[in-house]
């Protein structure tokens, strides 16, 4: 991966604004960028690194569409400065699948129709991925709790919960069924 130098703003005042070089491991690859301190991690991911799977759905840290894993923990990337990620590991939705295969969580969302418009889906899948790592055998209640920072305006959450149950069964090596139970 070649280093990436991101020009943030074009106005002349920007020349006087000190930028910082950050090195962040994004989806397993070291990425280097020159950032203004006020750049949010979500914006670095989307605009600087062109990883547009991470969505931003609000200005108030409420929606969770921007959820990424930061050193393995799900956080809202709109509420962290890109400079703060220097030296850390970030996983975005693009990091869930391999070239040829969806991750079990992604498969579950597909199989159980865990999305409608899809706007909340990347965030949902990141939070779900972190949950299943910590708790391979979650109850419906556990899932609702873990996803409670992620808002969905379409689905009513029913199928999202089923999708995560599906993924949990699959990850445990069981045959997932459509009612979510194994």
């Amino acid at each position, binding site marked *: 991966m070649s280093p990436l130098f991101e020009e943030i703003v074009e106005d002349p005042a920007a020349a006087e604004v000190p930028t910082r070089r950050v090195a962040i491991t994004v989806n397993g690859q070291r990425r280097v960028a020159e950032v203004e301190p*006020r750049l949010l991690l979500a914006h670095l991911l989307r605009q600087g690194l062109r990883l547009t799977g991470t969505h931003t759905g609000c200005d108030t*840290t409420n929606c969770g569409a921007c959820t990424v894993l930061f050193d393995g923990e799900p*956080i809202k990337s709109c509420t962290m400065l890109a400079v703060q990620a220097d030296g850390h590991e970030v996983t975005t939705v693009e990091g869930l699948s391999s070239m040829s295969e969806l991750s079990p969580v992604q498969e579950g969302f597909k199989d159980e129709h865990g999305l409608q418009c899809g706007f909340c889906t990347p965030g949902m899948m990141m939070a779900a991925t972190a949950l299943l790592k910590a708790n391979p055998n979650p109850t419906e209640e556990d899932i609702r*709790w873990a996803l409670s920072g992620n808002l969905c305006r379409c689905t009513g959450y029913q199928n999202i919960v089923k999708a995560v149950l599906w993924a949990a069964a699959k990850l445990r090596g069981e045959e997932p069924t459509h009612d979510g139970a194994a």
Partner: protein
Amino acid sequence: MYPSRFRYEAPRELTEAIKLLHEGQGEAKVLAGGQSLVPLLKLRFAAPELLVDINNLPGLDYHRVEPDGTIRVGALCRHATLERSGSLAQRQPTMAAAAPLIADPLVRNRGTLVGSLCHADPQGDWAAAVTALDGRVVAAGPDGVREIPIRQFATGPFENALRYDEIALEAVIPAPKGTPAGGYLKLERRVGDFATAGVAVAVELSGGLVTRAGIALCGVGPSTIAALDAEQALAGQALTAAAIERAGDLAAQAAQPRRDHRGSVEYKRHVIRTFVVRILRDIAGAAERAA
């Protein structure tokens, strides 16, 4: 939305962090979990010249219960750590009950208890819990370290007693003399919302009597409210039905709610009363079963 421009430093030593704040002359701000500050920066409600990120300071992410029962929570201990803490679950029921009710799981992975106290949001849950427990904040500045009792720490809505060049290092909960009991109840419209009304109760019991009572409210006034009359009325008493009802009444009187989209004044007072009574009844019930 972008925050306005600021300089950013993430020192690895406390003395350096304090020096930066000192040189900032009040135009610098500490960045901890960022879960209150970054939203304010984004909305440009805050526009500091310099952010001093304390996340690289070593050794501040602890929380521990000492042998005598004193609890110490470092400035970088996240809400989620406290939510999962076995030692809090065993030793400190008020804090254990409050932790999972703060914000949402994503915010809890970053936000800190000490940052919450510093933010001094009248709706902050930790401020109510720590007030009920009569805790204190340990702060370091150019002149050394000092302790500030929690009941003097918030000086107004979103204002605290720290000098501009001080950093809060930890929150301390004093060791209980009796058996600690307590709880935290919060009415929120949905997960992740701030409290319509929140009640923290922390009592110490000895020989069937309440030896110390702490009751604090959030969401129902311009800052965290210590329900002093209710606390005094309980001290030295047995948790009888009458004593519990009276504490509920006194706490509801101490509340200073305002009517807003979350509810009317009467409604909020009613919730406060109900929560105080509910927590105290639970404590009385558990004490009876244990006896």
